[in-house]
């Protein structure tokens, strides 16, 4: 009996992580498949609702200098209901920001996955900094209850010409630790998503830290040279276009 006879799905399973050929208990899921689904969902929810340990993140980033900010969303339930608050700084954070002559600023936002930020953000920043010695890079800003657009306000207040915002992406069942990176030239409040370049799906089963760092550094160097980010920059690097991860274009940032 060949392998294909034993499991006719074998060659299909290697082609997709979709939950195919789960078997049936009557019309329902078998117990094993049911519990595996629940475990994956529990992990995804834990990634959304747990907090980033910013002290540990700061020590992982050492010797890079860091500073902390918080969005106008005081807690996670508010953050989830009020995306507008997650895009703005709270007044105390805004008042405490230093300014300087910086080519590039890294902002690390918790976003929707604490796990993604905890695991992937520091290695990505370290890998980028090592490749970007020619740029003046500001202190790494660690932002709590933050969304992508918060980077615009932070970088604008600090006087940086380019901001790379790293954010925990909305977790799926098969990828709860996925990090996204958004690069924005001349950041200021009100920038549209079409004015950014995005690298998504950075995690152990997706885009590796090294590959992501190479792409981000290529984009950052090009952005500084061309003095722009967004659609115009992406056209020169078609291989960097990530999947359109939005069903029917409905999901907002």
């Amino acid at each position, binding site marked *: 009996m060949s392998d294909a006879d034993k499991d*006719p799905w074998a060659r299909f399973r290697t082609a997709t*992580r979709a939950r195919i050929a789960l078997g049936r208990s009557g019309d329902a899921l078998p117990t094993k498949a049911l519990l595996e689904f629940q475990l994956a969902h529990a992990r995804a929810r834990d990634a959304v609702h747990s907090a980033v340990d910013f002290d540990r993140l700061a020590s992982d980033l050492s010797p890079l200098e860091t500073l902390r900010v918080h969005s106008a969303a005081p807690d996670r339930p508010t953050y989830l*209901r009020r995306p507008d608050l997650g895009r703005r700084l709270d007044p105390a954070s805004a008042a405490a920001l230093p300014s300087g002559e910086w080519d590039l600023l890294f902002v690390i936002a918790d976003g929707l996955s604490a796990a993604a930020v905890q695991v992937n953000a520091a290695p990505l920043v370290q890998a980028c900094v090592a490749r970007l010695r020619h740029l003046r890079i500001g202190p790494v800003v660690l932002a709590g209850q933050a969304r992508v657009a918060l980077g615009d306000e932070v970088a604008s207040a600090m006087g940086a010409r380019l901001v790379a915002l790293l954010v925990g992406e909305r977790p799926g069942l098969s990828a709860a630790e996925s990090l996204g990176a958004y690069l924005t030239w001349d950041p200021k409040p009100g920038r549209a998503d079409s004015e950014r370049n995005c690298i998504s799906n950075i995690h152990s089963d997706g885009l590796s830290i090294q590959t992501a760092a190479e792409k981000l550094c290529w984009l950052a160097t090009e952005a500084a040279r061309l003095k722009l980010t967004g659609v115009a920059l992406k056209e020169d690097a078609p291989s960097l276009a990530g999947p359109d991860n939005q*069903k029917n274009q*409905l999901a907002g940032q």
Partner: protein
Amino acid sequence: MAGYHCDLGRQRHRFDDLKAVMACASPRRSGDELAGIAADSDERRVAARMVLADLPLKIFLAEALVPYETDEVTRLIIDSHDAEAFWPVAHMTVGQFRDWLLSYQADTAALTALAPGLTPEMAAAVSKLMRNHDLVCVAAKCSVVTRFRTTVGLPGRLSSRLQPNHPTDDPTGIAASTLDGLLYGIGDAVIGINPATDNVPACIALLEMLDAVRTRFDIPVQSCVLAHVTTTIQAIERGAPVDLVFQSIAGTEKANAGFGVTLPLLAEAQEAAKALKRGTIGDNVMYFETGQGSALSADAHFGVDQQTVETRAYAVARAFDPLLVNTVVGFIGPEYLYDAKQITRAGLEDHFCAKLLGVPMGCDACYTNHAEADQDDMDVLMTMLATAGVNFLIAVPGADDVMLNYQSLSYHDVLGLRHLLKRPPAPEFEAWLEKAGWLDEQRRLPPWPDQSLVVSALLGSAAR
């Protein structure tokens, strides 16, 4: 503007205009709170409903919530209104209209005749006075039947979309999910892929693959790659096997502009697909998706509550005789629908309003991982929707969409519902299942072992 009020004890609740009455009468939901238009107390919510119940239905013909002059969706709604069809309910208040809808007089024939006489705002208004069970009972009396290669929406049947998405559009991966779904009898509404990359060659490659599967097994189904409408029009121009044209739509001109569409563009797409004459039993060639919150997220809601704006999208849909429309009810996230209570309610509202307007409504009963919902909640919603006669439900392998990172229903769920509620798939597809020898003596689709002829015939052929 005159304004409205309702006195409850010593409290007078004032509402500046019709939009405010509608927004405050809506059940609590995070999107209206985010927009700053929701009622700020439960009493005020009921006060608004009391005002709404006494307003004449006709007011929605006289007072546009989004200006006629600047919005092509409003112009479509007003210009296509059928006064003769409206006549039987033209004298009613919104509250009287609810009572009539629930009455025995409002049977399938009466509701079918009434549909062209209703505007989305009328449907939205009366839905705000209805409980979930009311929404189920009235929707169950509505019948909207459409055809392409299968007949979707017949009474007593439940169709399904097979959604075999893959994060990199890998053909073997997509084939795996498709074949798995067929073994559960899924796909009689459509086999529809959300492509990972929206460009013409990628779209054509997927269309050709789905068409090859369909013709190889001679399955009476239609396929669709859910790319942007302009991508699909180009695919048609290049000779691709396009059955259905997909597009996301919303309830205002500005929100549709955010999706990159206008009414003339949708008309062009419909004509292009109809000209291919690929439907064997009908020429409903359009497939639309909608969802509460899309207008607000595009900053294009004009102060109208999200459920009413959503309902306006159904006026767009019905102008193009679609085969399928579905709300992606829990997909858009907790800033619009916070938890399972809000998702469930919205799913039932969307289905009811669409059916009342004569739109062939299905549903993606789903949620994201940052919403307060889980598969138990989808069990409730899918059962209520199936009881309400929903045209189709979306299903993915194991309820887990590995491309879009959200949870929908599983193939198991839809099959189980069909058996539980005795609602078989579309007749053409059911006949195919029967001819293939997949059904048992009770006309159920049983689990076939991996070594059975059924499975080896399907997977073996696919290998060649």
